[in-house]
């Protein structure tokens, strides 16, 4: 019986001591942490999968509370969980519209020049390291499919013309393709965006013309014709502001290389067939 008592007293004392030390240090070394961060991380699944791009669930919770990430940023959480978080923080889930990835380059094998024949590791990041890639245009898609492999959701595949294609139904807008691409060709746009310039080249018009038949010349014709002032030219590249664009299509006519186009959100044609 005595040994039972020893055990209870010793371990109880250790437990008490541990609790005390923790409590007291927590009090002395108190750092104000937004209590909502703890509440949010409790709601999150707690798998620390890193799918959101943050270093674990607590990190994401902090980002959500500080407004740096949307309430539905967790890829693993269901919609109800997102609603719960939003309700707790008093924000709405829909402040951020669903985004999808689109490929901002149309320079396929026929349209874009190649500087040399690349025979190295079949990965865009590797190709980029070799004299800046084999594509003559230093902004264009290298077409080795790194983004396709990076997609967790099987929403991308390589098209017949050597450019990646996004299945916008499967795309969750996680942005891993945009992150992994050394040239950031896949970009996220709101699903409601009506028109976009499917080119990423910031070169001057002349240089663009030399290497690609479907590159933005930055001549500003689209900008002039836009009645809503939705188009701006940023370093020789036309950019459409989705908030202003009404999708009237006046600019489509004026664009010589026909790269400012209506955004047509596609389904993967292969899936459709199957």
């Amino acid at each position, binding site marked *: 019986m005595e040994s039972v008592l020893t055990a209870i007293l010793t371990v109880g004392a250790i*437990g008490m001591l541990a609790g005390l030390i*923790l409590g007291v240090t*927590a009090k002395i070394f108190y750092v104000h942490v937004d209590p909502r961060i*703890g509440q949010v991380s409790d709601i999150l699944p*707690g798998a620390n999968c890193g799918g959101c791009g943050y270093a674990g669930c607590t990190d994401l919770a902090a980002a959500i509370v500080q407004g740096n990430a949307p309430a539905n940023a967790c890829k693993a959480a269901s919609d109800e969980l997102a609603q719960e978080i939003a309700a707790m923080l008093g924000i709405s889930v829909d402040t951020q519209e669903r985004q999808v990835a689109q490929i901002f380059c149309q320079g396929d094998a026929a349209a874009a020049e190649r500087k040399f024949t690349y025979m190295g590791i079949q990965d865009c990041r590797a190709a980029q390291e070799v004299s800046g890639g084999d594509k003559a245009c230093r902004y264009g898609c290298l077409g080795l499919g790194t983004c396709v492999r990076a997609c967790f959701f099987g929403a991308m595949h390589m098209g017949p013309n050597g450019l990646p294609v996004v299945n916008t139904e499967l795309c969750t807008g996680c942005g891993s393709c945009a992150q992994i691409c050394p040239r950031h060709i896949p970009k996220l746009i709101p699903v409601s965006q009506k028109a976009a310039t499917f080119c990423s080249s910031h070169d001057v018009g002349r240089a663009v013309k030399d290497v690609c038949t479907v590159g933005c010349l930055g001549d500003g014709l689209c900008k002039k014709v836009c009645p809503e002032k939705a188009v701006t030219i940023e370093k020789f590249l036309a950019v459409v502001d989705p908030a202003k664009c009404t999708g009237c299509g006046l600019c489509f006519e004026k664009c010589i290389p026909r790269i400012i186009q209506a955004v047509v959100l596609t389904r993967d044609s292969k899936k459709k067939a199957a």
Partner: protein
Amino acid sequence: MAARVVNEFTKGFWKEIAPLRFALGICPALAVSTKVESALGMGFAVVFVLCMSNVLVSAVRNVVPDKVRIAVFISIIATGVVIVELVMQAYFYPLFLVLGIWIPLIVVNCIVLGRAEAFARKNPILLSLSDGLGMGLGFTLSLVVISSIREILGSGTWLGMPILPEAYPGFGFLLRPPGAFVIFGLILGIMNLISARIEKKRA
């Protein structure tokens, strides 16, 4: 309700079989899988600890303050582990010697605390029990699969019975630590293959 209990139980065998799907609890799966016998012993020890911790955690889930949650859960788990340790020492001494340090290490098996945190903390006792039982048996199953391969190919026996002809020299590499990693990796690859096939058939 009954359907849910069954569902929580069966998910542990294929859909969420812990070591093979989530790479959770692979440390013991690698360490004690040289023989089927020790794998079984380890598996049942984990089943017991998992069921006990799931039930107790579920029982106290509403009275434990959040700040000391982990400490309380871990104490409960450690208690289960020590019980297993003592009982095994008393009645299965040779097994106790073989498993050695891996019995206390059940405490830090990610599956046990993982189920307490992810499931038992939020669910009633019966569901937690069935979850624990399913997950534990799933863990045992994966251990048995790995250890069968290692024991049969490594030393030509299964559960100590000779399976392969006497002339079989034994593939010693599988019995050593690096072999464990390689064989486990290959099993995961085969699992992927099977899953892909099943999915294809469904689609």
